[in-house]
């Protein structure tokens, strides 16, 4: 048994390659050659649904006299991407008390003066409260001890500011110009929002990627030598200029496949000629060109919403898949 599997692993090691094509702060495009479609799809599914992120979950609204309803406002706040590394926080379950390790608290207080024109409430008005909630829980009995601090909705033991990760980079939304609501004169919004850790599987607001997708590398094969005028026609047909003309001496021209990667598989190059030509002159192009896909070459694109850079997202996705494999192993034998 051992011999078979080491052969397969060796085969995988020899054939597997990664090539990064483009890497920016927010998105990346890379090629994975030598893996199977099920692995590629698993990575896509994990990137969309199983990588944790922080997003606003509970919104405590003190005052909302705008035309946006409470629940619509809370829904919009949940969808705002936050620029914070989710690995520094823990999950919060229902029995847990919100503390500095599992909650991020934001405050939003915006009002439009009477007499002024309409204002837009942008996401940069979400203020981070590193010490926790400022709203006090109202109890019916008056406080027994007047000197004790009133109870708030969170119990932070220390300010999140004091932690080394956050002391120089404050937590906030990734984009400053997201319009949360619009206020007319005399309208006011005052609320506190608590963000917790979650996964895309629970709600799409916790998905760390705008989207991530893969496609297989197209393969364009010339079944016969295409020379002369037919070559020129073929080059003109393709809308993304996959083909090119190459001189082979004595003034003869030949068509070659120059950029198969940009092919969109529109199949224009194999569409048989129609009424634009006379019947005898019509060419059936599918005898000259074959369109296929390379079965194990995947072009991956990951667009991050900003919590983590895309290369870190992929590394975390591989770790999550490894964890899943470990959990699925049976102990019985």
């Amino acid at each position: 048994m051992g011999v078979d599997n080491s052969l397969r692993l060796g085969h995988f090691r020899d054939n597997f390659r990664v090539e990064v094509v483009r890497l920016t702060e927010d998105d990346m495009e890379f090629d994975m050659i030598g893996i199977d479609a099920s692995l590629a799809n698993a990575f896509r599914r994990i990137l969309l649904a199983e990588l944790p992120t922080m997003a606003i979950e509970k919104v405590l609204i003190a005052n909302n006299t705008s035309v946006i309803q409470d629940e619509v406002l809370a829904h919009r706040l949940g969808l705002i991407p936050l620029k914070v590394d989710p690995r520094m926080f823990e999950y919060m379950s229902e029995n847990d008390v919100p503390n500095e390790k599992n909650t991020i608290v934001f405050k939003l207080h915006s009002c439009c003066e009477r007499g002024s024109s309409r204002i837009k409430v942008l996401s940069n008005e979400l203020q981070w409260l590193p010490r926790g909630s400022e709203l006090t829980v109202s109890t019916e009995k008056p406080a027994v001890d007047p000197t004790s601090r009133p109870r708030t909705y969170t119990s932070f033991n220390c300010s999140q500011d004091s932690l080394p990760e956050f002391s120089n980079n404050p937590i906030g939304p990734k984009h400053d110009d997201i319009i949360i609501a619009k206020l007319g004169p005399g309208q006011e919004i005052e609320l506190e929002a608590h963000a917790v850790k979650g996964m895309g599987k629970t709600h799409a607001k916790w998905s760390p990627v705008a989207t991530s997708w893969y496609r297989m590398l197209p393969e364009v094969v010339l079944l016969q030598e295409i020379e002369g005028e037919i070559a020129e026609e073929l080059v003109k047909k393709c809308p993304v200029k996959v083909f090119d003309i190459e001189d082979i001496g004595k003034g003869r021209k030949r068509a070659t496949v120059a950029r198969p990667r940009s092919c969109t598989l529109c199949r224009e190059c194999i569409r048989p000629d129609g009424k634009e030509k006379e019947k005898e002159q019509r060419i059936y192009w599918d005898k000259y060109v074959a369109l296929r896909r390379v079965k194990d070459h995947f072009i991956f694109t990951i667009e991050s919403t900003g919590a983590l850079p895309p290369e870190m997202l992929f590394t975390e996705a591989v770790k999550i898949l490894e964890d899943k494999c470990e959990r699925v192993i049976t102990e019985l034998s």
Partner: protein
Amino acid sequence: MNAPDRYERFVVPEGVAKVSYERDTKIINAASFTIEREDHTIGNIVRMQLHRDENVLFAGYKLPHPLKYKIIIRIHTTSQSSPMQAYNQAINDLDKELDHLKNAFEAELARHSGSQSRQY
């Protein structure tokens, strides 16, 4: 109204085993593994890895119902191996492949960022 809670998709409840195993009474060397709270992400990968094993005659997975979050993997092997052995071997191989994939990706990232910074 009847939809289950979203956390049911990945939280295994108390008293339920994550993986359970049932031998097929009518066919020798055949078994079904039921994995709770998993979906196509892991099912398709394990099925693909099982197909690469020469001793596996039949390997397939299914989700019996999209709102009941579990998968059933059915494996038939030759008498050279047993379904349990094939299953564990497949997952161990996957682990090693993923490890290699992660290292190759990190090496390529380092190479790419190294060559990019040299351009400036």
